[in-house]
């Protein structure tokens, strides 16, 4: 059940080029959020729509989100000061189903943060967790120490080779799977859509279960207005239907997603 709460901002930091970490205090939301769920944040009176941001981490009653400044909403959010109050709706959506025993997390860019919570929850449940993380550039790299402590191993790539392997995170995924088909029994992935559809494709080729976290422009964020749809294969796999990213997702099985309708 979601809550609408006015939450005190505990801290806001720039953690990489254009990337901010914001921690707010809300026991109701912190007490009920699962990995992969998101919050819907009101970014000032001037903007009509809330902005969806995944929860990255929890600590007692504290909720951490990490976001990239993109437009007016995230820019407003990045200017918040400690002690201010923000209007947050959450937790929203269905999170990851941690129904494997050896998870491989595949994150790209601003899709990396929600995977941290999955890593922590899975490792607390005694699962084996490893991560492949891709970034555009070394100056965009975030959360490496946190992933390192939650995972057995973490491998990093950058598109320009400024840190880790040179190339895409999907290249890492292919090498790993080709080296050892049993490296995992479930892939969880979050990142830009082009990357996700590539991950889905690779997972399918390797007959590996895979969950992806999608993005879509949102209105209500709670499932009522039907603006956030993405194309999903009907059960059986023949027809097509639209699912609500906010309420039926944002996490979907990679096999049900129709990639050119999202």
């Amino acid at each position, binding site marked *: *059940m*979601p809550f*609408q709460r006015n939450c005190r901002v505990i801290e806001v930091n720039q953690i990489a080029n254009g990337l901010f970490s914001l921690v707010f205090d809300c026991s109701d939301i912190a007490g009920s959020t699962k990995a992969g769920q998101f919050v819907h944040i*009101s970014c000032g009176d001037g*903007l*009509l*729509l*809330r902005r969806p941001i995944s929860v990255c981490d929890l600590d007692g009653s504290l909720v951490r989100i990490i976001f990239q400044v993109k437009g007016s909403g995230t820019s407003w959010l990045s200017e918040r000061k400690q002690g201010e109050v923000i209007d947050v*709706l959450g937790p929203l959506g269905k999170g990851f189903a941690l129904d494997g025993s050896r998870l491989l997390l595949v994150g790209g860019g601003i899709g990396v943060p929600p995977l941290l919570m999955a890593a922590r929850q899975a490792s607390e449940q005694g699962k084996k967790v490893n991560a492949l993380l891709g970034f555009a550039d070394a100056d965009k790299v975030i959360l490496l120490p946190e992933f390192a402590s939650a995972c057995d191993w973490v491998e990093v790539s950058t598109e320009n080779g400024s840190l880790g392997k040179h190339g895409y995170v999907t290249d890492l995924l292919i090498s790993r799977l080709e080296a050892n088909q049993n490296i995992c029994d479930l892939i969880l992935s979050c990142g830009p859509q082009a990357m996700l559809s590539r991950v889905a494709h690779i997972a399918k080729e390797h007959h590996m279960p895979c969950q992806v976290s999608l993005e*879509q*422009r*949102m*209105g*209500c*964020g*709670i*499932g*009522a*207005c*039907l*603006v*956030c*749809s*993405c*194309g999903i294969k009907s059960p059986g796999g023949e027809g*097509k*239907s*639209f699912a609500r990213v906010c*309420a039926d997702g944002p996490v979907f099985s990679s096999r049900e997603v129709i990639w050119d*309708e*999202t």
Partner: protein
Amino acid sequence: MKPDLAVTFAGLEFKNPVTVASGTFGFGREYSNFFDLSQLGGICVKGLTLKAREGNPPPRIAETPMGILNSVGLQNPGVDEFIKTELPFLRRFNTRVIANISGNTVEEYSLMAEKLSDAAVDMLEVNISCPNIRAGGLAFGTNPKSASSVTKAVKAVSKVPVMVKLSPNVTDICEIALACEDAGADALSLINTILGMRIDIEAGRPVLKNITGGLSGPAIFPVALRMVWQVCKAVKIPVMGMGGISGAEDAIEMFFAGARLISVGTACFKDPYAPLKIRQGIEEYLSRKNKASLNDIRGKLITD
């Protein structure tokens, strides 16, 4: 003394004048997690069609200055499924249930009206103003003749009051309003969304996959208020005012212009509790102004 918020509308008692607008509130399930739906005067459910509809491809929403564009395109499970699975849920609450219907043909409208009034919804809202579908919808609402024939067809079969929802995308909304009144409509609701567009200049593409969409939210409030005022002067049947209402002040402006009920749509996206806050603000205003009920302000605009 506490002011009386009850309203009689098309022969029905509404416990208060605040309803929620079709398409913004689903079938009520999601918002029922936030508050008891019995606190609402009524619920206009998501627009229904005879058969289930998938709606338009995403993205379906764009933000504009104090407004939003949507191009949902009437995604819904169809009228039968609504009656089977959604209506029983809504019936658990002590609030008026208003079924919003769109057809591709006049026959579809009357078929739906029959099914829904048999299923005992409280009122029908005949949508002749959806800008997001090619067939039907808006086409019916921009022409007095077709507005009239849809209204007549629905009235002929409906056992519950019929409210027709008007489009603002017309030269003369009073002409359509009068046509619906003459055809027997029991009430009118307005406005639906105004057709608009946004372009992503980085991609050189429309933000909406459907290219255009319907503008709603505070940006359209002055247009909605003007049309409600014009229509209330032109017709004798009651009017439900909507379009950009986001606070009690807006609702009260609508009452001064002549609306008997109001409906809150886009405002819920920002604040799920908006309808309740508006209801409370109306009550506070009436108390502060020493008015016993909405009758004391409705249509009472001074324009000397």
